[in-house]
C-alpha cells in the first residue's frame, strides 16, 4: 500500500513538472518576442521605446538564454513564486489565490449537480423496463454534449433572469448567483456521466451476481441499488478525474458569460492582455487540480475495490 501511494505521488509530481515545462515552451519559446507582445498589448499601436524594451527584458530575464530563464522560473515556481503580472504588477500567486475560492465553489457545486443529474438519468434508464422511457432518457446525453457551454448559459440567463426574474444575471453575491452558472457548467458533464454510467450499468445488469440476486427474490429496485449501482460506479470515478480538468476550463467560459469574478475572469483578462506570467500560472494550477483529483481518485480505488490493492499497479 505504501508503495502504491509513493508511486502515485511520484507520478503526480512528474506530471506537474512537465506541465510547467510545456507551458514554458508554449508561452516563452513560441512567440518571436514576448516583450514586444507585452508592450503592444499594454499600449496598442504605440511607439516602442527601446529603453523600455531593455528594462522589461532585464526584469523578466528575456535577455538571458532560454535554458537559464527556464531554470530560474522553475526554481521560483518551486518556492511558490509564479512571477508578477505584467498588466497589474501584482504577484501571480496572489491573483490566483484571490480568484480560486470563487471558482472552487462554482466547480464543486457543478460537480455535485452533474453527478446527481447524470446519475439519475443513468439509474432510471437502467432500472426502467419501459423501452420508451429508456429511449427518451438516453437521447438526452447526446444533446447535452452538443450544446456550446456559453449558449446554455445565455439561454438560462434569458429564461431565468430576464423572462422570469428568479436568479441574478451577474455577480458573485450569495447562493442564488451560483445556481445558473453551476447548472450551465454541469449540463455537459452530466451528459458524459450519464453515458458512461448507463453503459456500465447495462453491463452490470448482465452479470451473474445480478441473476443470482434476482433468483434469490430481490426486487429490481434492490438489485439496482445494492448491486448494479455499486459495481457500475467505478468506471464513472475514473471519468471524474478527467472531467474535473474540463470543469475548470469550462469555468473560464461560464464565468465570462455570467460576469463572475474568479479564475475564468482572470484568465480571460490575462489572455486578452497577453499577460504571460498569469496565463502560465493558470495552466500550472489547472494541471495541479487535475493531478490532485486524479491522485485522490487513485487512492480511493483500493478502498472501494479491494482487488486493486492486491494486484500490483500496472501503470
Amino acid at each position, binding site marked *: 500500500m505504501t508503495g502504491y501511494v509513493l508511486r502515485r505521488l511520484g507520478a503526480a509530481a512528474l506530471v506537474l513538472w512537465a506541465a510547467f515545462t510545456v507551458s514554458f515552451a508554449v508561452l516563452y519559446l513560441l512567440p518571436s518576442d514576448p516583450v514586444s507582445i507585452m508592450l503592444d498589448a499594454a499600449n496598442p499601436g504605440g511607439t516602442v521605446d527601446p529603453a523600455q524594451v531593455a528594462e522589461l527584458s532585464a526584469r523578466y530575464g528575456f535577455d538571458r538564454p532560454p535554458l537559464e530563464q527556464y531554470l530560474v522560473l522553475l526554481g521560483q515556481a518551486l518556492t511558490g513564486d509564479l512571477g508578477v503580472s505584467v498588466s497589474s504588477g501584482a504577484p501571480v500567486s496572489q491573483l490566483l489565490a484571490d480568484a480560486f475560492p470563487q471558482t472552487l465553489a462554482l466547480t464543486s457545486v457543478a460537480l455535485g449537480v452533474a453527478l446527481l443529474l447524470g446519475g439519475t438519468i443513468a439509474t432510471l434508464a437502467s432500472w426502467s423496463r419501459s423501452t420508451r422511457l429508456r429511449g427518451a432518457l438516453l437521447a438526452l446525453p447526446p444533446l447535452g454534449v452538443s450544446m*456550446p*457551454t456559453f449558449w446554455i448559459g*445565455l439561454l438560462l440567463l434569458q429564461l431565468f433572469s430576464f423572462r422570469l426574474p428568479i436568479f441574478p444575471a451577474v455577480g458573485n453575491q450569495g447562493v442564488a448567483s451560483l445556481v445558473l452558472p453551476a447548472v450551465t457548467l454541469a449540463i455537459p458533464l452530466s451528459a458524459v456521466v450519464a453515458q458512461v454510467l448507463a453503459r456500465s450499468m447495462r453491463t452490470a445488469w448482465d452479470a451473474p451476481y445480478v441473476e443470482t440476486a434476482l433468483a434469490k427474490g430481490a426486487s429490481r429496485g434492490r438489485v439496482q441499488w445494492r448491486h448494479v449501482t455499486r459495481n457500475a460506479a467505478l468506471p464513472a470515478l475514473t471519468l471524474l478525474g478527467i472531467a474535473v480538468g474540463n470543469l475548470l476550463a469550462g469555468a473560464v467560459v461560464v464565468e465570462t458569460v455570467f460576469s463572475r469574478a474568479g479564475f475564468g475572469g482572470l484568465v480571460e483578462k490575462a489572455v486578452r492582455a*497577453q499577460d504571460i506570467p498569469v496565463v502560465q500560472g493558470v495552466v500550472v494550477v489547472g494541471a495541479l487540480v487535475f493531478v490532485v483529483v486524479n491522485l485522490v481518485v487513485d487512492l480511493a480505488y483500493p478502498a472501494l475495490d479491494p482487488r486493486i490493492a492486491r494486484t500490483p499497479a500496472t501503470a
Partner: protein
Amino acid sequence: MTLVSQAPAAVTAPSVAPVPTPPVRPARRARHPFLRPGALASFAVVLVVLGWALAPGLFTAADPLVGVPADKLSPPSAAHWFGTDNLGRDLYARTVHGTGLSLQAALLALGLGLVVGAVAGLVAGYLGGVVDAVLMRTTDVLLAIPGLLLSLAVVTALGFGTLKVAIAVGVAEVATFARVMRAEVLRVRTTTYVEAAVLAGARRPAVLARHVLPNAAAPILVLATVQLGVVMLAVSSLSFLGFGAVPPTPEWGSLVAEGRNYLSVAWWFTTLPGLVIAALVLAANRLGHLLEGREHR
C-alpha cells in the same frame, strides 16, 4: 457456462434428425443504421451547412455586413428568418456567411491535430523504446492540461485571429490522436503481413507507408469525425471569448457574443446562431458514432 454451451454441439451430430424449431415471430427487419431518421436528419444538417460554407450567396441574398438601421433588433420574420441585430443586419445572412470561416477553423484544427498526432503515434508505436516513452509521456502531460487552458496559452503566445484560434485548438487535439494512432500501430505491427514484409527485406519507411499506415488509418479517420464536434465547440468557445474573428466579419462564436448585450430585448440574437452550432455538433457526433459503431462490428 462453457460446459453447458458445448453440450448441444455434441448432441447435434449428423445422425440425429433435425429438431423442428419453435415458430419464431418474424422480427421487424432492422433498418440500416444510416437510413434511420436521426441519421438522415444529421446528413441533411451537414449538407446544408456545407452548402452555406461553399456557396453562401445561394442561400441568402441579404448582405451580412450592411444593415438597415430602421430594422434593427426586429424579431424573426419571413423577411429576416433569424431576425436582425443591433445594426439592422440580417442575422440569417450573418450566420450563413460566417459558416465558411467557422468551418475552416474547425477543419484546420482537426487537420493539424490529426496529422501531427498521427505522425507522433506512428513513430512512437513503430519504433518503440525510448522514442515511444518520450512521446507518450509528452502526450500524458498534454492530456493533463485541460484542453481549453492549453489552447488559451497558445493563443496568448501567438496572438488573436481565426487562424491562430484554429492552431491553438489543433495543438490541444494532438495528444488524443497520437494515443489512438499508437494503439492501432501496436496492433498492426504484430500482424503476419507486416512481419512478412519485414522478412522480405522491405525498409522501415516502406513498411510504415505501405502496410502499417493504411491498416491503422480507419480508426483515426473515425476518431476525426467524432472529434469534429469537440473541435467545433472549442473553436466557437474561443471566438465567443473574443479571440477569433475581428468584429465586422461574421463568425459563429462571435455572433453569439455580439448578442450578449441584447439578451433581455432580442432573444433571437444569441439563441438562433447558437442553435446552428448545436445542431451541427449534434449531427457530426451522431454520424461519427455511427461510423465508430460500424468500425467495431
